[in-house]
């Protein structure tokens, strides 16, 4: 039985994407396009599985498995999967036929790998002159470090983020996961969508060379211009800030319940102080920025003592009503019931043959006239072989059965 191809609607419904590679930075670009209607065909293989299928807990039921990994599921929703052994001639030929009918290729192999497979942009654009190829890797396709392999979590440190996270008297703290990959995802999606517009204007395809490092550096820009202008090297300051005082994360009643509070001017302090109502809040030295800055250690202790007897939700609500900046430090469970994220349908639930119902984060932006949707869960390896090879490329049943017996669809 041919698995049916999902109906696609939306502004990108005329865009066909073929995706090679794994992990985050390439495939999450495909996800962004697929959620607004693009047809995204993942070319993968049991011979070289995506690391997001194999190396990253959590797995459904805490049991590792190729079709059980959340990391893959949340990065590849709305896509089709074709398993092609790219080491076989026939596998490469089928990949080329998919690329010939595509508008976009997204790949994040190490630089040069697509060329060696005969699938590089120059070879493909000769067959498909309007093709946009996005190549994304750690540090770009050129330059002395182009060939250097590395993980996104480490690249996050090379790009300066880690050094700026944590306490000044302690070693730096890691950010969660491959933080920088998802910076490159936003820039990569913009680049592909801009590339498609360039094709519309010029009729000529193009090759985008995206370095994850360089996109990370954009998020570091204020620290870098500060260094270039004045030679100042920014460092981590715990939760403190140069614009607001106090500015921190404070404990509330319960295990690991925290809230953020920040005071941005003297008027906001006075609103905060009346809401607190304690004698310390009325001390004159705290009424000015300078006074609060000078006694910041003591002030933080007083606030923490005060907040630690209060329920987080009640406290945040009181602060907001009083016109004081405040928010809960949402833990991962809190996110799923956060009233605002729920209102925006930020997590969408889809079914999956192995994982069952699970949550997938949808687009963070809302486009009222062309809303993005998580319509179906991530594909299983080769789930759409027949639908794509017969239904889209037009192979006969006999040809398909022959392929299934060979090593081409492994």
């Amino acid at each position: 039985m041919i698995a049916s191809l999902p109906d696609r609607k939306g502004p990108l419904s005329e865009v066909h994407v073929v995706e090679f590679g794994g992990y985050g930075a390439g495939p999450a670009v495909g996800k962004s396009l697929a959620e607004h209607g693009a047809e995204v065909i993942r070319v993968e293989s049991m011979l070289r599985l995506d690391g997001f299928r194999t190396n990253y807990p959590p797995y459904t039921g805490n049991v590792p498995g190729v079709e059980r990994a959340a990391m893959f599921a949340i990065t590849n929703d709305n896509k089709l999967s074709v398993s092609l052994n790219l080491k076989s001639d026939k596998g490469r030929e089928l990949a080329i036929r998919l690329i010939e009918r595509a508008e976009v290729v997204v790949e994040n192999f190490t630089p040069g790998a697509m060329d060696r497979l005969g699938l590089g942009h120059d070879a493909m654009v000769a067959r498909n002159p309007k093709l946009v190829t996005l190549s994304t890797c750690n540090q770009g396709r050129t330059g002395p470090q182009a060939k250097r392999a590395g993980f996104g979590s480490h690249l996050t440190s090379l790009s300066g983020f880690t050094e700026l996270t944590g306490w000044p008297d302690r070693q730096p703290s890691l950010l969660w996961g491959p933080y920088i990959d998802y910076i490159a995802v936003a820039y990569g999606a913009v680049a592909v969508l801009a590339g498609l517009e360039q094709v519309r204007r010029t009729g000529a395809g193009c090759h985008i060379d995206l370095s994850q490092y360089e996109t990370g550096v954009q998020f570091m820009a204020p620290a870098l211009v500060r260094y270039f202008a004045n030679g100042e090297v920014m460092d981590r300051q715990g939760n403190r800030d140069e614009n607001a005082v106090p500015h921190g994360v404070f404990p509330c009643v319960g295990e690991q319940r925290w809230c953020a509070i920040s005071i941005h001017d003297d008027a906001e302090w006075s609103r905060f102080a009346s809401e607190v109502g304690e004698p310390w809040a009325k001390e004159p030295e705290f009424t000015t920025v300078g006074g609060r800055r000078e006694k910041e250690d003591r002030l933080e202790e007083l606030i923490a003592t005060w907040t630690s007897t209060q329920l987080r939700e009640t406290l945040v609500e009181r602060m907001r009503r009083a016109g004081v900046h405040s928010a809960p430090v949402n833990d991962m469970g809190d996110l799923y019931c956060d009233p605002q994220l729920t209102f925006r349908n930020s997590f969408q639930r889809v079914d999956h043959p192995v994982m069952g119902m699970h949550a997938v984060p949808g687009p963070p932006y809302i486009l009222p006239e062309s809303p993005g949707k998580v319509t179906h869960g991530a594909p299983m390896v080769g789930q759409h072989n027949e639908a794509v090879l017969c239904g889209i490329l037009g192979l006969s049943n006999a040809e398909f059965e022959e392929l299934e017996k060979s090593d081409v669809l492994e």
Partner: protein
Amino acid sequence: MAGSVEQNSAPLSGLRALDLTGELGWLLGRILADVGVEVQKLDPPGGDPGRNLAPVIEGPAGTISAAWVAYNMGKSRLDLDLGTSEGRERFLDLASEVDFVLESEEPGILDSFGIGWDELHKRNPALILTSVTPYGQDGPLAGTPASDIELMSAGGAVWLTGDADRPPVRMTLPQSVCWAGSYAAVGTMIAYHHRQMTGQGQHVDMAAQAGLLPALVHAPSFFDLLGENPLRAGGYLVGRNINGAAMRNIWPCRDGYVTWAIYGGAAGRQSNRGMVEWMDDNGMAPESLKNMDWSTFDVATVTLAEVSEMESAIAAFLETVTKAEFLEQADVRRMLGYVVSTAADIAVDDQLAAREVWSEEFVPELGETLRFPDGWLRIDGLRQGVASPVSGGEQ
């Protein structure tokens, strides 16, 4: 040729945007400028108050906010007083001729001035209005003010970082503005493709809180699948091991920190082996590490005790090396790791210089030329950017 800016070949050249945003939206307009949109920033009388946002940088002619200058590069500027009816009429005239309007006011503010979505759409049906706000245009928290620490907290990022024995922390450099701006640019580009299909603009609603979900990657899934809440673990990486073992990722060295971890997989095994060989060459590899059979080592199932024993020997060794030595040996021995860079390290990075990432532009507020990160987009080998690159040789 270094020094040439391929402005005319930029993919979106000829399109125009009016940028009314504050801090939360600066990067959105910057990214549109990066891909060729002509972005005009509208400033209130007396100038954008964001110019004073700390930290400020200093030049011979005065000071300017570091974030302001970095994220408003490549935009032209026009003073316009939206507090007057002439100013609002002028704005509506300008908006009727552009492709995008970008704003980050509290929801409803533009409407109350008579220059909101309904009016803009009536005058220019093809216009795309992108609003970047803390929580979005609608819903229970719409209109609630939030600065970076509230957004990082409500978005789940703060929960995941910091040392276990202290409160969770946010990154000292504000990040929510960057996630909001960059993902708003994606939404704006998708709306542009919708317009190419239908001729119609729309009101793109970007919420900075939701913009942080991509940064959390799979952390929320631990709760969704297993009911677990991954707890911050300082310089250790959690969530890669089914026994809950945390893998050390940050190691003090002689002049700062390096990042490296014991890994699985083929590349990981080579990386582990490379580290032990380097230690051994310096007489610092204990027998237990030298005798490790990396071919059967599985990072997903190793126990906490085994990891701790290996890591203590590695930590003692890495304290004897410099960042530069680590980078050099990582290359030679195929170890997967980098240095934990400061701004000063990034400024002299050979790869960024070779790729012409840095541009220079004269900043009137400073009275001097400022270097800033620019050329992230390369199309057919040509470096794009809002200004001319500093060539590699000038570093």
